[in-house]
């Protein structure tokens, strides 16, 4: 064959490779810009007191974000406690009953729910919970966040379990193991790493949500640990401080943003770790 033709193909190949590499590099730039900016602005705010002190009135120095940090953790924890068990059970149903009508409709609604704007979820929960209970509350915020987590947990559980070969189920059934034990003691443990990492990613995904909390958890300048009362959270605090006219509050918002970012990065790292540590060779 003509060597010029081959050379031409080589050039084309390399060009294509170069473009692919360039674009995957470009994809990392936004993340690094965000990280750089937030760290530059936030790092000087962060110290031990910042984490454990309550906010101070404008003008006084040395305030912290203890209420927002604890509030965020609590709201997210309650959301996870609501969404993860529901999501795993629904995911099991979907993977075990692929062709049922109900499975089709719940799969569809999970997919649509993932696309619902979070502010809409917030408003709906406002009408469901906040109005009847006549009070903003951390619980209502958790419900709104749980509604956002649910479809993620459902779908990752389903997809994980679908990848587990049927032969393990058959082996267990042939030993005379009842169906519910086959699912809980064989199928779910085989998919544990996938289910756990899906759940952790869902937590990471909602930890920074602001919109669903605006009309639900509402925010609170004081320390509160009662989930039936309004509660502060990091995203709400960042929002409130960032739109305030005070420079000092702007700086604290940057600090809080950095804490939130670290939290989410840690969750992502933990997910990677869990996936590696608990992976089961099928």
């Amino acid at each position, binding site marked *: 064959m003509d060597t010029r033709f081959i050379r031409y193909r080589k050039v084309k190949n390399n060009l294509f490779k170069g473009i692919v590499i360039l674009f995957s590099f470009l994809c990392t730039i936004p993340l690094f810009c965000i990280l750089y900016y937030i760290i530059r602005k936030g790092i000087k705010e962060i110290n031990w007191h910042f984490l454990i002190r309550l906010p101070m009135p404008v003008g006084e120095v040395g305030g912290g974000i203890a209420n927002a940090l604890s509030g965020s953790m609590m709201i997210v924890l309650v959301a996870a406690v609501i969404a993860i068990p529901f999501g795993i059970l629904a995911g099991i149903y979907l993977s075990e009953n692929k062709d049922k009508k109900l499975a089709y409709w719940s799969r569809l609604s999970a997919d649509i729910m993932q696309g619902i704007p979070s502010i809409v979820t917030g408003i709906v929960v406002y009408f469901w919970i906040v109005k009847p209970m006549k009070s903003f509350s951390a619980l209502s915020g958790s419900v709104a966040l749980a509604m956002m987590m649910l479809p993620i947990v459902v779908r990752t559980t389903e997809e994980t379990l679908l990848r587990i*070969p049927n*032969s*393990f189920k*058959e*082996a*267990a*059934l*042939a*030993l*005379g*193991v*009842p169906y519910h*034990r*086959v699912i809980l*003691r*064989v199928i779910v*443990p*085989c998919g*544990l790493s996938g289910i756990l990492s899906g759940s952790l990613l869902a937590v990471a995904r909602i930890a920074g949500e602001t919109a669903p909390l605006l009309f639900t958890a509402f925010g609170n300048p004081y320390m509160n640990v009662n989930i039936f009362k309004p509660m502060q959270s990091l995203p709400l605090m960042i929002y409130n401080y960032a739109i305030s006219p005070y420079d000092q509050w702007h700086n604290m918002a940057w600090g809080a943003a950095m804490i939130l970012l670290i939290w989410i990065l840690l969750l992502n790292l933990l997910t990677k770790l869990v996936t590696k540590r608990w992976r*089961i*060779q*099928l």
Partner: protein
Amino acid sequence: MENTIIKCENFNAWFGDNHVVKSVTMDIPKNNLTAVMGPSGCGKTTFLRCINRMHELAPDARTEGSLKLYQDEVYDIHPILLRQKIGMVFQHPNPFPNMSIYDNVVAGYKLNGIKLSKAERDDIVEDSLRKAALWMEVRDTLRKKGTFLSGGQQQRLCIARAIAMKPEVLLLDEPTSALDPVSTSSIEELLIDLKKNYTIIIVTHNMQQAARISDRTAFFYMGELAEYDHTKQMFISPKDKRTQNYITGRFS
């Protein structure tokens, strides 16, 4: 036949409208090794899976006729109890990937929530692995995952898992078709050894294997039981035309 453990009379099985096992009548003797042979798609696997009621797990599966374990209709025994009495080994080795070798052997007890003392468990594990001719190879690595073993070892682990439940009958569906010749012959030896204490029914595609290890052979053809006889008899002078053709390799 005296000493019959499984007795079929006009037994039929369907997948929807697909009549897969047609009016099978046969007696399977205790502590014998019975081979089930026939061209692929003739219903061997389906027949085997009727014996421990795994067939009914398929949507729109159906059966008719009589299939007895001793005096009891299999379809009157609760499937969970039945399957603890009738063990099964599959075509592809399938040790549980989330369990160690040790836990795989006692999986039938663990998963069924049957409590055993540590000593009882240790005994069952050693005994079953010895019977499955795997003990010497894995005695030092019992805590390792079963999936690290070779294919042949995994299949012997699956046999150990089945016999750990002390079943009456052991069903094997082409247990060596995914294995190399060395692993195959070690499993054949093992089966010959096991038939002293267990009734074994093995589906095999391999005529030499049937000839080597089985006492009786059942030949299925398109869902019918074409011929059922002592293995020697059947290979020397098959009575049915379809069996003759199969044995002489006129179709496969």
